[in-house]
């Protein structure tokens, strides 16, 4: 662990340059915009910015994009509290108590609690990443392709079991993601797959187009069914209440610590910020002595949701870097970015490219503090921005999505693909098909298949290889257990109904 701290200080020497600090501010600012505006969520925002980083140093690029992620996670709560409109899916739980608090005249208090809790959750998450990095990478070094395949299956299985959507719909989402990933050139055999003689499909389907379509256009289609312009409760901050809120905020330390733990758990194991904030809110309500106040402006509920949200976001960087395993859609996009920049995630990354890894981790300490301060400072600005009629904001966001898709490869075909995925995203969302597993499957698709083929090659085609070593057997067993869970709970429901 001491070794990690030394590495961290070297990371600070990477992160604390003028360029990188400027990138943090720029990233957080972009992120706040993205977090506030509907149709521009964190995964979509990171995808839009990613093509512009192709020429950058990888460490600069990741600092810019992760700062954007922190900004988006925190910015999502501004609209939750002032408008009762979650800017991000992960800030839905923030509306439960944040909006009632604001409506009763304490908007500044609610915003301050939310941002401070976000900051606390994020920093807690980064500390966890710092302390566990060494141990997790040593553990990951034990992995062969067999264990990797098992871990990927486990990630998919946990979406089926805990994703909250119908298991069969989740399986269809994952299957579609994996299938989209196989389109184009097969890296092992060199043959062209699933292109149906469409020349444009030979280079494959870019996950960036898919994310911009599903999350960006898809959400716009949903909003445009009945565009309404939101009314802010207030666009001003009350400075006296702000300082009073900062002073009283530490009172909620029990909720803060508990939620930070829940957030980190959901960040490291696949679940992501959205699941983390809901779970943390639920636990806080059950643990509270006054559960009847939840939903009516209980500070504990607000603090719990926000802390877990941000803790999950930042701790998700650990499995992403050490195993190449993202636990949320945004982490999946960042992972795709790593591969485009020529960086292979995994335990060897920590050994071969400590500058990159520790530069990123060190930057997370700084950029999250930047995010809290900037989020507070920009409340009046964004509250006004949200009041621009959506019939104007909507087309502007759509235009940004189109340009973003163009910058991926400069191909007209991609724009049509974007439209198709936009419609798909709209339908999936409306019919409760989960979108995040599709994105995860798409980014992990090639590596899942490679791991499977290598495992089969190692074992000479014996599928039991996934149970050969104790490590592989326990991961595969857990995955199978997760896949069985919906079935078991369904049978139990039937039995109790009968």
């Amino acid at each position: 662990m001491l070794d990690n701290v030394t590495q961290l200080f070297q990371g600070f020497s990477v992160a604390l340059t003028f360029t990188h600090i400027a990138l943090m501010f720029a990233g957080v600012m972009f992120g706040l915009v993205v977090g506030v505006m509907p149709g521009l969520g964190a995964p979509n925002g990171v995808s839009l910015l990613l093509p512009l980083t192709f020429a950058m140093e990888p460490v600069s690029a990741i600092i810019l994009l992760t700062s954007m992620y922190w900004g988006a996670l925190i910015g999502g709560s501004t609209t939750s509290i002032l408008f009762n409109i979650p800017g991000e899916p992960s800030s839905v739980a923030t509306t439960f108590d944040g909006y009632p608090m604001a409506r009763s005249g304490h908007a500044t208090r609610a915003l301050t609690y939310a941002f401070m809790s976000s900051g606390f959750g994020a920093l807690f998450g980064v500390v966890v990443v710092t302390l566990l990095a060494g141990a997790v990478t040593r553990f990951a070094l034990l992995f062969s392709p067999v264990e990797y395949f098992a871990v990927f299956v486990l990630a998919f299985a946990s979406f089926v079991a805990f994703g909250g959507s119908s298991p069969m719909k989740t399986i269809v989402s994952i299957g579609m993601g994996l299938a989209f990933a196989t389109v184009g050139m097969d890296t092992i055999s060199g043959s062209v797959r699933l292109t149906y003689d469409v020349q444009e499909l030979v280079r494959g389907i870019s996950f960036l187009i898919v994310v911009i379509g599903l999350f960006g256009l898809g959400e716009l289609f949903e909003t445009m069914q009945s565009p309404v312009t939101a009314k802010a409760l207030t666009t001003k901050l009350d400075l006296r209440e702000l300082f009073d809120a900062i002073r009283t905020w530490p009172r909620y330390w029990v909720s803060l610590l508990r939620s930070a733990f829940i957030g980190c758990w959901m960040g490291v194991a696949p679940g992501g910020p959205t699941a983390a904030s809901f779970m943390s809110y639920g636990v806080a309500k059950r643990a509270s002595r006054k559960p009847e106040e939840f939903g009516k402006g209980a500070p504990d509920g607000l603090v719990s949701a926000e802390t877990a949200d941000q803790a999950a976001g930042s701790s998700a960087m650990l499995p992403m870097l050490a195993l190449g395993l993202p636990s949320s859609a945004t982490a999946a996009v960042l992972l795709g970015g790593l591969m485009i920049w020529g960086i292979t995630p995994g335990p060897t990354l920590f050994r071969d490219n400590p500058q990159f890894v520790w530069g990123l981790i060190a930057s997370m300490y700084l950029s999250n503090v930047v995010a809290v301060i900037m989020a507070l400072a920009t409340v009046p600005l964004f509250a006004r921005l949200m009041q621009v009629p959506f019939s104007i904001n909507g087309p502007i966001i759509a235009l940004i999505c189109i340009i973003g898709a163009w910058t991926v490869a400069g191909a007209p075909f991609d724009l049509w693909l974007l439209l198709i995925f936009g419609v798909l995203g709209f339908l999936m969302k409306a019919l409760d098909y989960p979108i995040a597993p599709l994105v995860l499957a798409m980014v992990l698709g090639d590596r899942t298949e490679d791991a499977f083929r290598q495992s089969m090659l190692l074992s000479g085609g014996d599928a039991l290889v996934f149970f050969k070593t104790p490590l592989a057997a326990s991961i595969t067993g857990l995955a199978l257990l997760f896949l069985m869970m919906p079935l078991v709970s369904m049978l139990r429901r039937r039995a109790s109904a009968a």
Partner: protein
Amino acid sequence: MPDTRPVVTRRAAEIGFAIFTAALGAVVIYGARDLDTGWSDTGPEAGYFPYRLGIIIFVASLVNLARAILRPGAPYPFLNVSAMKGLARFALPLIALIAATPVLGVYISAALYLFVTIAVVAREPLRRALSVAVLLPVALFVLFEFAFKTPLPKGPLGPLFGML
């Protein structure tokens, strides 16, 4: 007043989408069958993985389809008339923008798109529409050409900038 007569019911939408994903699974199976779906000395062939994926998508879709048919559909509509109109107002200019971008370049089509959506579709004041339609493409131009150094297609404006 919003027109809430249903265009598509929730049940029909569920059934339609399950048929769509089942068809997608079938297309994947068909595409994988063109390749070798079995084994070689180098392990599973190129079609092995997609073939099985196709089957998984197809079977899971059939389960969703059966559920959608058997369960009495929720009474609320999936799309009503006014939502459909809202979607069309947004989607049609967007399709025009996608078709125009490779021909007219990003900046001209962006200006036209913004003007049409804000002035004609949303019926905002002309002055507001014009200022967004002019200022935003100019801002994008400065941002992409100079700050990001990522030139975007300029269409007929291209030669003009070549001379600069």
